[in-house]
């Protein structure tokens, strides 16, 4: 084993919290079947148990990052399925994130890391820039030169892969990404979403509080229609919907890629924008992206206890809700008077966001709201909803492994015959499912939508025809 590096003591100190958590793991292996990377790669170091033991060994100076630890941690999807599977309640997320911060620290000067950080800070976190970048890259991928470049990029070592370029792999190629809407993307789109008469769509049972909508970065940049649909559903359910100006990317991507400083900056801006630091905060903040919601729930710890920021972050976390859970909790039912007309039900497979499942614990609500729609048959994928391989920007950073995870995923989705619609609950998953549908040769046959978008569309369609679409 390598001798401990000179700065090893500092590393060990920074990793202390991960080490303590890692010692709680009893290597029972119960997490192995839940781990998508272990399932496709078949090696212990790509399993939760292996990664935890590697972080422990690293902290104890028995192995160095360059000796395979970094690779093992890089290839983790961060899906957190292992936490749900772990009977000891080992907090793997804490171990992973602490270790990734330390890796980022070691790599701070590597060109790949610098570029990645820059892309995340200056492009990915900004809806309009992201949408523009997406359009440009999609155009680039379609050009001969671009394809050649991408092929070359596939051979560069993973840590060096410029995320900006390979991101194009994840984009819906034929259709191209949706054009960005003018002026704060989501907000302007939302104005038009509030059409009169929309309230007729839903039966409202109780008086509703105010709901602020969190619009996100990728969601607002690439799938503005999902935000529009979310707002429409909330309005139709009787909420007063506000879309605070000045809100920004939630910072989850930065957090998970070892840039906690920027994640904290973004959180601070959001706390301000939503009125949690001053002014009057909304009773609830509604999220339609599982990844963002999970991070807001976990982000509390970036501020020291006892500070006003901490209190504000805690309040935001307590009021941050998933759209499906909100709809369910407020007792809505679709009031579209649908008749099935003897047609076969629309087959929907719900592919949940991992963080919505494993971090937020929201598993039943999305299924329940989908099942409340008449004429829809809802199923989970045969694997019960394991990670699709999107995992933030994993698909861009590790295209080969991501593609193998995706291949298994698509087989699980199509196990009972390809569905009509795949419904997801996160923009990253949405992109990945679009790629999966293409990869599986199902383009044109299977549609992909996010949950609010699907419900909104389904109800609107059936309103028009008085029977379910399909």
């Amino acid at each position: 084993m390598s001798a401990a590096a000179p700065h090893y003591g500092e590393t060990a100190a920074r990793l202390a919290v991960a080490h303590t958590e890692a010692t709680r793991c009893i290597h029972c292996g119960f997490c192995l079947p839940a781990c998508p990377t272990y399932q496709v790669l078949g090696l212990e170091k790509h399993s939760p148990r292996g990664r935890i033991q590697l972080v422990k060994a690293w902290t104890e100076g028995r192995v160095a990052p360059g000796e395979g630890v970094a690779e093992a941690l890089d290839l983790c999807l961060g899906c957190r399925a292992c936490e749900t599977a772990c009977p000891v309640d080992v907090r793997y997320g804490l171990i992973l994130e602490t270790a990734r911060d330390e890796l980022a620290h070691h790599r701070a000067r590597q060109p790949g890391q610098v570029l990645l950080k820059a892309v995340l800070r200056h492009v990915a976190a900004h809806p309009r820039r992201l949408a523009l970048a997406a359009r440009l890259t999609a155009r680039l991928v379609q050009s001969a030169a671009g394809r050649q470049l991408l092929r070359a990029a596939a051979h560069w070592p993973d840590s060096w892969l410029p995320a900006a370029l390979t991101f194009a792999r994840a984009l819906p190629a034929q259709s191209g990404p949706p054009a960005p809407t003018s002026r704060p993307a989501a907000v302007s789109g939302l104005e038009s979403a509030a059409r009169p008469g929309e309230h007729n769509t839903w039966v409202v049972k109780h008086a509703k509080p105010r709901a602020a909508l969190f619009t996100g970065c990728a969601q607002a940049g690439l799938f503005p229609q999902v935000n529009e649909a979310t707002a429409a559903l909330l309005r139709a359910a009787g909420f007063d919907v506000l879309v605070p100006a000045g809100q920004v990317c939630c910072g989850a991507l930065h957090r998970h890629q070892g840039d906690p400083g920027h994640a904290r900056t973004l959180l601070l801006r959001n706390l301000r924008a939503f009125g949690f630091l001053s002014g009057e905060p909304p009773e609830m903040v509604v999220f339609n992206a599982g990844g963002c919601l999970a991070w807001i729930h976990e982000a509390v710890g970036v501020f020291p206890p006892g500070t006003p920021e901490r209190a504000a972050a805690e309040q935001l976390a307590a009021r941050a809700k998933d759209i499906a859970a909100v709809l369910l909790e407020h007792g809505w039912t679709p009031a579209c008077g649908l008749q099935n007309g003897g047609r076969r039900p629309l087959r929907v497979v719900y592919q949940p966001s991992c963080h919505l499942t494993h971090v937020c614990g929201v598993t039943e609500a999305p299924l329940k709201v989908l099942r409340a729609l008449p004429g829809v048959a809802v199923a989970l994928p045969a694997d019960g909803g394991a990670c699709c391989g999107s995992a933030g920007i994993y698909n861009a950073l590790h295209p080969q492994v991501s593609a193998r995870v995706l291949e298994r995923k698509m087989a699980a989705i199509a196990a009972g015959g390809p569905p009509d619609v795949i419904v997801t609950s996160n923009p990253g998953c949405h992109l990945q499912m679009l790629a999966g549908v293409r990869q599986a040769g199902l383009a044109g046959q299977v549609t992909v939508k996010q949950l609010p978008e699907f419900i909104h569309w389904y109800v609107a369609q059936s309103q028009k025809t008085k029977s379910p679409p399909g």
Partner: protein
Amino acid sequence: MSETIARELRSVLGPDHVLSSPADLVTYGYDATYVSHLPDVVVFPNSTEQVRQVLAVARAHHVPVFTRGSGTGLSGGSVPLGGIALVMTRMNRILEIDRDNLLARVQAGVVTADLQEAVRAQGLFYPPDPGSARISTIGGNVAENAGGPRSFHYGTTGRYVLGLEVVLADGTVLKTGGKTTKNVTGYDLTSLFVGSEGTLGIVTEVTLRLLPPPPPARGTLVASFADLAALGRAIGALAAHPARPTSLEMIDRHCLAVVDDYRPPEIPAGVAGALLCEVLDWPEALQRRLRELEEVCREAGAVTAAGVSDVSAQRRVWAMREALSPAVARIKPTKISEDATVPIAAIPAFLADLEEIRALRRVNLLVFGHAGDGNLHPNIICDERDADEMRRVQAAIDDIFAAALARGGTLSGEHGIGLLKRRYMTRAVPAETLAAMRRLKSLLDPHNLLNPGKVFPDEARSQRQKGGRTA
């Protein structure tokens, strides 16, 4: 280890299947115990022939070979002490499910639950149900003669092994047994390899006996007791009753406290222990049998006895039982699982011994296990970084084994001896018997290449374990 050996292994298996990066060595150095030690190289054969070739390299260079399934073992059996870690997980093909003859032929690296599932899909049943079934391999199950709750009725893995393909240290590929359930054609070599913990040969293929599915109705009897004496009496009475259940599991109050969040309503808070029994029967007969068994428990002094037939209520009970083994580690990071087994009439006395040891040694000792088989799992939850506590733990372990042996029991019911229990072997096994085991070992593996340092108390390499983080 020299680069020559790694090169030879690579030429046999291909470069992707011979790993020696520090990260790979660390992650193939542990099993589910607290001991670990690094191998020199990790190999992943894909066929019997490749296993043979790896052994040829090992023989040529006198390098020991440590076979590993999924590393869920609870005795350190697959922990490599240097040498070659030979991992069977790529050999995971189900070769045949023969419905007409009620048997399956599988490679040794098949995950137990995958086999259970494949067999179920064909309308058949593979009974052994170790708690680790979703992870463990059939090879590991054979090598440890793994049991599970249902062993009470159905027996352990060994009862289902009809035949084996085994690669011996000298490269001979043995085929033992066959496709028949009865077979007295010469010595029963199949049984010799069952429970041999990777020390006599490397199992590459297993022919397994299957059963038709059990009767479709499932019920669960949940009984709780105010004292362990009554609980012990109930175990004996249930085991001897004509309506006896398929499984007979016990958990004590210390366990119940740990998994309180799983505690089903059938078990009141504050009891000394509980019994959980599965009953499989025909729908018409199920209720009658559950009532019968409730009565048996009440007569033995149970505070509550409830036959549950609601599916989700039963699921809740068994979820608690499944979570228990690992969940006890929530309290403290180090979990030492013992596997002492006593004749069932000795259970009440043995439980009393354990309570005494807990108090005397001041250790966090909890007990659950397959009570119907007399197979208890006294678990000690501790912190390996606390030297004082670990001394008391060691003393408690010594006491546990002494008590089990004094009660006419044995060291291990299903987890094997491996590294952790070697030192008690001389006390547990008569000298002549141990000598006969050694002669067998040196006959089949004269150069001590296969899993050296395991099972026997004073192997030549036993010194090496001091170099690693071993017990």
